[in-house]
């Protein structure tokens, strides 16, 4: 059984239809990349999977580990093992990072029937995980993302992922706004977290990130549909020829069909 099975998904926001009959299936142990031009629906897909309420699903199903993902609240999805690394992590003044993350982890543990972690145990875990991400531990004494640089925010997303150990990680343009050092650090973190029992959906506009997080499959999203799928080499072709090449190709295919 696939870990995540998206079938004929259509979704709209503010009255605009963004996703149109999208189907995609991920197995445990796989990394899938979703590429596509601006406005093609990449971030909408991430938002719909995470459960953002502004996005309305108009058709289709999403089954995650055998359960109906779309019927779950955002927190239930997280507890079931879905993690969204935000494109623009929000700053939350007044909410301490460590306190927040411990509360989050304990909610996830509770839902799996595991005991909550006491503060000392949690700090040990945090110490170990922050090493993987080379994250300055001082950041964790600050309010969530407050005053973090762009790179620190993205690193913090992957750090949270390391602590929460999701089954499915969705990285929404995690590479945007990162310099090459930060990009490498973030990618290295993601790679260290790869396991046979989890999967990742890496959403990106550029091929650059995929040099470091090597995907098993690459899908090209155009106008709310997956128009092309292939192996990791597809990313390189796209980088060389641009998205216009895909658009032209699919237009040609559509012409032939009609």
């Amino acid at each position, binding site marked *: 059984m696939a870990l995540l099975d998206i079938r004929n998904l259509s979704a709209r926001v503010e009255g605009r239809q963004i996703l149109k009959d999208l189907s995609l299936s991920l197995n445990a142990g796989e990394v899938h990349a979703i590429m596509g031009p601006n406005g093609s629906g990449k971030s909408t897909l991430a938002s719909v999977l*995470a*459960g*953002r*309420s502004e996005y309305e699903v108009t058709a289709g199903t999403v089954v995650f580990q055998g359960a109906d993902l779309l019927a779950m*609240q*955002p*927190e239930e*999805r*997280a*507890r079931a093992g879905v*993690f*969204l690394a*935000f494109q623009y*992590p*929000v700053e*939350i*003044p*007044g*909410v301490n990072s460590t306190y*927040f*993350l411990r*509360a*989050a*982890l304990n*909610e*996830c543990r509770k*839902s799996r029937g595991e005991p909550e972690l006491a503060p000392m145990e949690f700090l040990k875990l945090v110490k170990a995980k922050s090493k993987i991400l080379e994250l300055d531990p001082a950041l964790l004494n600050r*309010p*969530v993302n407050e005053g973090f640089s762009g790179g620190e925010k993205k690193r913090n997303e992957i750090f*949270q992922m390391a602590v*929460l150990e999701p089954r499915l990680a969705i990285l929404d343009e995690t590479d945007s706004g990162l310099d090459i050092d930060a990009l490498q650090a973030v990618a290295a973190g993601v790679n260290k977290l790869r396991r046979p029992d989890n999967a990742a959906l890496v959403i990106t506009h550029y091929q650059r990130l995929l040099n470091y997080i090597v995907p098993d499959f690459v899908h090209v999203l155009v106008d709310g549909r997956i128009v092309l799928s292939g192996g990791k080499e597809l990313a390189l072709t796209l980088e060389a020829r641009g998205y216009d090449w895909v658009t032209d190709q699919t237009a040609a295919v559509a012409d032939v069909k009609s």
Partner: protein
Amino acid sequence: MTAAVDPSKDVAAPALRADPADAHQPRPTMSMAQMLAAFRDAGTDAVPGWLKQRRVAALARAVEVGFPTTSDEEWRFTPITPLLELPLHPAQPPAHRLTAGEIAPLTFGLEACRLVFVDGYFCGELSSLPAPGGDLRAVSLRAALAGGAPELEAHLTRVAGDEALVFTALNTAFFRDGALVVAAPGKAIAQPVHLLFIATAGETGAAAHVRNLIVAGAGSEVKILETYVSLSDAPHFTNTVTELVLGAEARVEHCKIQEENHRAVHIADVQARQDRGSHWTSHSVSTGAKLARHQIQTLFDGEAGVCILNGLYLARGGQLADYHTVVDHAKPRCESHEFYHGILSGNAHGVFNGKIFVRQDAQKTNAKQNNRNLLLSDDAVVNTKPQLEIFADDVKCTHGATVGQMDGEALFYLRSRGIGLEQARQMMIRAFASDVVDRIPLEPVRAHLNHKLTERFKDKP
């Protein structure tokens, strides 16, 4: 998401909200003459001649000014109907003696020198006073008046002498007791002083006029905590005035927590006069009372003074919480920082009015004012208004006000990590309050307030 508010406009039209239970019929209300008759002989006995004179003058002033109505600019959004509907009468000495065990939960476990007042009456056996002859004097005002404490004639009723504030005038006329706290010059007082005011609220309309005077000698340091609680839910009235005199370079942290029952009326005036280089921090938290009005004022009477005014008001249901602040930059090179945060739910009403005067020779003034409001319901109302009157030309003055709902993006972020909606909301509420709460220098008080915030917003707000 918070929206910036045009400070020249009120945020919403005022809505006069009556408690649904009271809505069906108007009740008779008390006139000023009835009020004066009810309190004529309460607590005004056995005072020195100078105070008698000031009482007479204050009474005359109260009669002249009369009770405020909503056509009075200072009370435009704050109808005092809940007060005037009460059968007001002087609170009687408590029939039942409280025990140390009963008041223990009201002390937050704070190690402090403590003066306990029950229904406005000083309660010596529950209090722990500092040893006489030390750097700190803390006694009941009545004892101090009887003993002829030298600070009284110089300062009492002099700091809060602006009798345009009719409730302050009434307090001057009728106060029975309160505390006198004096920190000796040059001394840093390690133990905080806790003034605990308990209303047993045994009967509807019991009223206590409480008066405190805090004198911090030049170069002294002292922390004062004033708390107000009710032990039952009968509507009662507290009219409290605290005067603070800060000598040159003195540092005072003053923390006032109002947690009276939700039918009470609490009217408070906290006024400071700051000498050169003094540093006053006021923390004021208001969670109780049906109608709570707080006047907080300081006068910079010497150069280079600093005041930090923090405030947090929580109002729900038909509660009204009102903060009126006045910072008078009468001297050059003083700094004032105001941070007032309101959290409103149900059909609660919040009012903030912040006045800053910068007098003509108060050059190099630095004045900041900030009022933020978090609305948890569609029916809550806030009226916020800054009022800056600047007559000097080399000054920095800023002000800002926001009224908004909970940040949906932040809420989603917390939920996306597995935190449930209710817990996420609570985290956000606490975060909003923490700007104010975290500045309070007494850890047990912070812990109490954090616990209170959690309890208060546990269920649907």
